[in-house]
């Protein structure tokens, strides 16, 4: 019962705000928006406390969705250890960001629409993480995509925002096509889409089929979680309101791909090749996006590339079978990246929407609390102990190193380490350019109001202390909690790997500190470092979008023009008009027979009769 309530609460908020929000006072709209998510958070806490969650999982079946012969899909919900964590992250961080939005969106005319969409998003995300089978997960998966589209294009009267929303939707469609194919492949081979049944069937499936299915599912994850090669939509998604970027495009929705792999880990564990691909894509994306963040001037886009990079870490963790660490990083990342986005949002709110870091600066004085929050988030992102990001990133890098020692590619670990360095550099750069130096912005920036400050304070506390969830000194409560989920159904590989021996913990820390120092050295006094040809290469995102334009977009447009101007007008229209003209001309040719004189017709009848009689006689 409690599971239905968790999903239904934000859904109710969506209905109320969506249908009647325009006629309600703003205070009520905000209270409904935040209250429903807060209540969902409370319900999640209650549900997570249920002993069944730690056991086989708390389930709820709403109804049988459809049955086709042996194949049955029910609309069911499931909360086990993994989805309990996800539900808590989604509702907890979601609640904080809802509260922040009350202040951030206070002056927006479409206040009710904003909260309606945001509530719908939370409901969809909860459906995604609480879905009891792959098809319910897919419904949530598509619904969060819809909400993402709606909220990126929230200010749809701006052309860039509208285009970005469409881009996000279309790029996600590409990945989702693969995802759907993967689901269908699993449905036909495993005969069921229930997670427990899939896990049981994983061992007996043909390796080729399993590899194909998991690769297709991973294609969906690259779209939703903005990995190479489908990352292109996430930087543009920053056109949406900043709390949306924090909630959807940093903390929750984009982690859906990671969650999906964790959820289906029995399948992925049996597909070694897919795991290698996941690790490689994750490592490549982590490094690539971090380098692009190094030269980006738009504060929000820096954070967007940073998110892509950190998601790469999570996939790296999944690929090297450090899944609990990946989920741990997902959690800490949700804290510190939401904090960074909210701090960036406070900056934008204070200076009137400026995000270009060249036009910012000197904000540490007037906005000292926001600056402090950004610094906490930045240190966590850079992986400096004892901030939260250190513990999770460190675990992942250790896992990558061990993986390399067991025969994996060392390059993955090296890429992870290099990413840690670049991450420290770009976060230092963003910090210096935004907050240090003389005030670059005219006018009087003001600190964030309390309704925005409090959520940031909570997130800052979580970014600082969240590492205790997985810190060795604290007994790694989160990893121990998740452990049974990954061990029970898996092959047992994970049992020893749950707490990797601290091989080279010092190295990532040293790299991070070196990165911060390098950042200070490079960008002291807010210098504009161009990095020469390398900088140009990076600021073009390694020419990946240029490549897509040349290889896909331009030929597609040409093809469309060809179809519209030649095939359509001359081919199809030509055929239709040609048939009409032919009939018309034939009519003109024979109209002379119709003289209007009765005697002509009579003569024709006579002639016909004679001919017929003659034929009959001579036959």
């Amino acid at each position, binding site marked *: 019962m409690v599971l239905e309530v968790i999903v239904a609460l934000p859904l109710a908020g969506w209905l109320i705000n969506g249908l009647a929000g325009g006629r309600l006072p703003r205070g009520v709209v905000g209270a409904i928006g935040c209250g429903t998510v807060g209540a969902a958070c409370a319900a999640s806490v209650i549900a997570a406390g249920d002993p069944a969650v730690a056991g086989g999982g708390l389930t709820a079946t709403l109804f049988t969705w459809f049955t086709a012969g042996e194949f049955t899909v029910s609309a069911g919900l499931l909360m086990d250890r993994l989805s309990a964590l996800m539900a808590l992250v989604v509702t907890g961080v979601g609640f904080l960001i809802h509260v922040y939005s009350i202040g951030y969106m206070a002056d927006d005319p479409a206040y009710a629409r904003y909260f309606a969409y945001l509530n719908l998003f939370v409901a969809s995300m909860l459906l995604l993480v609480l879905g009891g089978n792959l098809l319910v997960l897919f419904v949530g998966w598509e619904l969060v995509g819809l909400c993402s589209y709606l909220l990126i294009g929230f200010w749809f009267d701006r052309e860039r925002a509208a285009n970005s929303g469409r881009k996000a939707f279309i790029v996600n469609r590409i990945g989702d096509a693969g995802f759907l194919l993967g689901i269908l492949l699993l449905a036909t081979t495993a005969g069921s889409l229930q997670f427990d049944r899939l896990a049981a069937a994983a061992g007996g499936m043909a390796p080729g089929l399993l590899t194909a299915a998991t690769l297709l599912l991973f294609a969906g994850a690259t779209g939703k979680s903005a990995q190479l090669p489908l990352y292109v939509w996430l930087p543009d998604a920053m056109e949406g309101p900043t709390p949306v970027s924090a909630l959807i495009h940093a903390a929750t929705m984009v982690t859906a791909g990671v969650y999906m792999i964790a959820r289906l880990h029995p399948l992925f564990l049996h597909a070694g090749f897919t795991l290698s691909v996941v690790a490689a894509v994750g490592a490549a994306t982590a490094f690539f996006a971090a380098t692009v963040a190094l030269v980006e001037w738009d504060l929000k886009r820096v954070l967007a590339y940073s998110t892509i990079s950190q998601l790469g870490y999570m996939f790296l963790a999944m690929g090297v079978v450090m899944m609990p660490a990946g989920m741990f990083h997902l959690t800490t990342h949700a804290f510190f990246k939401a904090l960074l986005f909210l701090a960036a949002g406070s900056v934008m709110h204070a200076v009137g929407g400026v995000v270009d870091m060249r036009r910012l600066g000197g904000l540490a004085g007037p906005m000292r609390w926001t600056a402090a929050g950004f610094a906490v988030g930045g240190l966590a992102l850079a992986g400096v102990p004892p901030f939260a990001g250190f513990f999770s990133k460190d675990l992942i890098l250790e896992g990558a190193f061990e993986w390399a020692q067991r025969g994996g590619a060392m390059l993955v670990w090296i890429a992870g380490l290099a990413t840690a360095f670049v991450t420290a550099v770009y976060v230092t750069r963003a910090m210096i350019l935004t907050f240090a130096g003389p005030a670059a912005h005219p006018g009087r920036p003001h600190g964030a109001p309390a309704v925005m400050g409090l959520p940031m304070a909570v997130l800052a506390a979580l970014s600082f202390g969240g590492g205790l969830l997985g810190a060795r000194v604290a007994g790694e409560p989160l990893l121990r909690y998740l452990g049974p989920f990954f061990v029970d159904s898996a092959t047992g590989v994970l049992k020893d790997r749950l707490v990797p021996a601290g091989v080279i913990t010092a190295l990532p820390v040293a790299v991070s500190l070196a990165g911060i120092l390098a950042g200070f050295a490079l960008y002291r006094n807010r210098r504009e470092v161009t990095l020469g040809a390398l900088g140009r290469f990076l600021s073009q995102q390694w020419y990946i979008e240029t490549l897509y334009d040349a290889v896909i977009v331009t030929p597609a447009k040409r093809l469309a023009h060809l179809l519209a101007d030649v095939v359509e007008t001359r081919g199809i229209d030509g055929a239709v008009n040609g048939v009409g003209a032919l009939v018309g001309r034939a009519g003109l040719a024979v*109209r002379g027979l*119709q*003289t*209007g*004189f*009765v*005697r002509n017709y*009579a*003569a024709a009848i006579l002639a016909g009769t004679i001919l017929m009689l003659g034929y009959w006689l001579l036959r």
Partner: protein
Amino acid sequence: MSVPLEAYLALSALLFVLGTTGVLLRRNALVVFMSIELMLNAVNLTFVAFARQRLAIEGQLAVFFVVVVAAVEVVVGLAILIAIFRTRDTVDIDDVHLLRG
């Protein structure tokens, strides 16, 4: 002595050709009408002749049908003719060719 069948058929053919010629060549709609009646009755004559020769009643039956239909046709046809005459002051069928293609 009885009149042979061939004589009836010859008369019938003569009447039919007369009627056909009238339909094809005359311009006055009333005369065309009368020519059609002539063709109908030529056919009636063959019906009756064959019925008598073969001692079958069906031929005579058919004649009654033809007579009835001819009467009906005359009613309709004359009504049309009068309508045409009222609007155009003529019954010359060469002037009535509105249905030309």
